[in-house]
């Protein structure tokens, strides 16, 4: 989405009818391609520099003769995308502001004067978007972060926030080297007591890999979401199979499809792909060895 906004000012520079026309013709065969979209977006975007108008008016006058269905669709799509982009940007800004506010809240275990002042300062310094009401899971998140800080390591938690659309699920990003101990804490601590591991997913962000865990406390009926990052070249996350047996095949699947190593796993071998397969198919940069496969 953001590329849309950034490219628009770039595309605005080559003004003049000549580039606009052939580009308008380009729009006909390939309305989906990104460079073609901008000039069309230019024609449709409400806010246009006046210098553009005479230049744009000419191709706009000629374009209706040639405007095909693809162009119409592309134009509408671009307009919609522009609106969505604006909405997304606003939502992201609000989310970030809320996150910052909540992190400021989370950073204060007990109310003390100085942090309270800074917490007050943070919402006061917010942009015009109203501060989000505190989430019902906020105290739980705070408690988890405190426990991890005290019992595992001071810097075990990299980030923590509430995932609001997902029923206010407390989400934590835990450092890779502290993961095994933190997992044991999640399993064994009386307040957390997460004895059921719902899901383990691996995600390939192009610069790093991540494993997402969803432990669940079956008795208290509450859970968390934990993400552990690993670097891309030799990704390795401590295996939690000794802690939750559910993770056994899940980790094997993540190893098979994404290539993340799980030291401590009793039997790490491929599960879906044949045993002699080369490569890890779910990676973003996966190229099959045999192009016909």
């Amino acid at each position: 989405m953001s590329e849309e906004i950034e490219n628009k000012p770039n595309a605005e520079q080559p003004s003049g009818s000549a580039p606009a026309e052939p580009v308008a013709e380009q729009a006909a065969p390939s309305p989906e391609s990104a460079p073609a979209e901008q000039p069309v977006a230019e024609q449709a975007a409400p806010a246009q520099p006046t210098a553009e108008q005479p230049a744009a008016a000419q191709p706009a006058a000629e374009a209706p003769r040639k405007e095909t269905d693809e162009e119409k669709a592309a134009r509408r799509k671009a307009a919609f995308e522009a609106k969505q982009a604006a909405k997304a940007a606003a939502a992201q800004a609000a989310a970030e502001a809320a996150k910052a506010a909540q992190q400021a809240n989370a950073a204060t275990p007990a109310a003390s004067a100085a942090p309270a002042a800074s917490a007050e300062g943070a919402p006061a310094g917010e942009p015009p978007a109203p501060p989000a009401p505190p989430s019902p899971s906020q105290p739980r998140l705070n408690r988890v972060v405190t426990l991890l800080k005290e019992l595992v390591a001071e810097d075990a938690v990299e980030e923590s926030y509430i995932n609001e659309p997902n029923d206010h699920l407390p989400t934590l990003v835990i450092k890779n080297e502290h993961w095994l101990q933190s997992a044991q804490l999640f399993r064994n601590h009386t307040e957390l007591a997460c004895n059921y591991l719902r899901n383990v997913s691996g995600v390939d962000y192009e610069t790093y890999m991540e494993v997402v865990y969803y432990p669940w406390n079956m008795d208290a009926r509450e859970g968390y979401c934990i993400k552990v990052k690993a670097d891309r070249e030799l990704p390795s996350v401590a295996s939690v199979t000794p802690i939750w047996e559910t993770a056994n095949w899940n980790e094997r699947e993540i190893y098979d499809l994404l290539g993340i190593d799980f030291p401590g796993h009793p039997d790490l071998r491929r599960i879906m792909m044949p045993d002699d397969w080369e490569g890890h198919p779910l990676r973003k940069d996966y190229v099959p060895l045999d192009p016909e496969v």
Partner: protein
Amino acid sequence: MIRTEELLLNVGPQHPSTHGVFRIVVKLDGEIITEATPVMGYLHRGTEKLAENLNYTQIIPYTDRMDYVSAMTNNYVLVHAVEKMMGLEVPERAEYLRLIVMELQRVASHLVWWGTYLLDIGALSPFLYAFSDRERILGLFNELCGARLTYNYMRVGGVKWDAPDGWIDRVKTFVKDMYVRLDEYHNLVSGNEIFLARIKGIGQYDAKTAIEYGLSGANLRCTGVDWDLRKAEPYSLYDRFDFDVVVGKNGDCYDRYLCRLGEITQSLRILEQALEQFPGEGETMGKVPRVIRPPAGEIYVRIESPRGEIGCHIVSKGKAEPYRLKFRRPSFVNLQILPKLLIGENMTNMVTILGGIDIVLGEVDC
């Protein structure tokens, strides 16, 4: 001394009782299994990788093919995840239609399980009775959305087709008949001495083991844990209906059997109430943007499929395609307990235990 050897036997991938293309390599000492290693991946079609290039509406047919015996619940988990991320409202009539088809699907799936399970155990006839009832359900689905097995019925924001005239009445007739048939099935099978001798006490595990292994669905409820996502984390309109969660006691195959048949009865109850409350008119599709682009973020949504907890984990970067789509498949997770349960068992009991877990290979392999 007689020198004995351990026999390495390959059960599958082509085998009448493995419920799909699934292979178990068993080490036998006579007829007792000393070790069992499941080998899967024969049906791996790369749904998750394909999903990264398709927009959400295009992924819906792929979800049908994962757990092909229970396609409606698969459809639902995906569209529910997207709707939750985008905060979309689904109109009431569409939500009722979704619930009705999901419960009908649950009945159909449990009938398939019942018929094939008894076929594995050796009784030839219940298979045909179960499938003749399932034919009626598939006929209803055919009228509704044009397909018998892979429906592609739900969309983000609603459903694709509205119920044709008289469809609701036909479903009501079916529900009434199904109650009678279910009684007949209990009479025929559930008290049979041979059947009970084959099933009772087999494949037993306790609640702690079940939770440890992450089991869900009837596999968890048979041990006494009252965990049904329709009641514990209500989604769709389940909180409007009055139904019980069928819970077992001992955690053996017999309790799983009773749990699943009990679930059919509860589904019929829900269906009765839903058909009563069905809105006379309404939209089948809500206000959905033309291009479905959930905002950037992550979500994990789970619902109760006939096999257990099916979950959908979406990482979205705000585009029309998901950045990462992962399905938490209940059959995959439930199957992990198989090697543990098989040690020390007979070859015959292997078939009984595997059938009792109720797996569908399309889901195990995704």
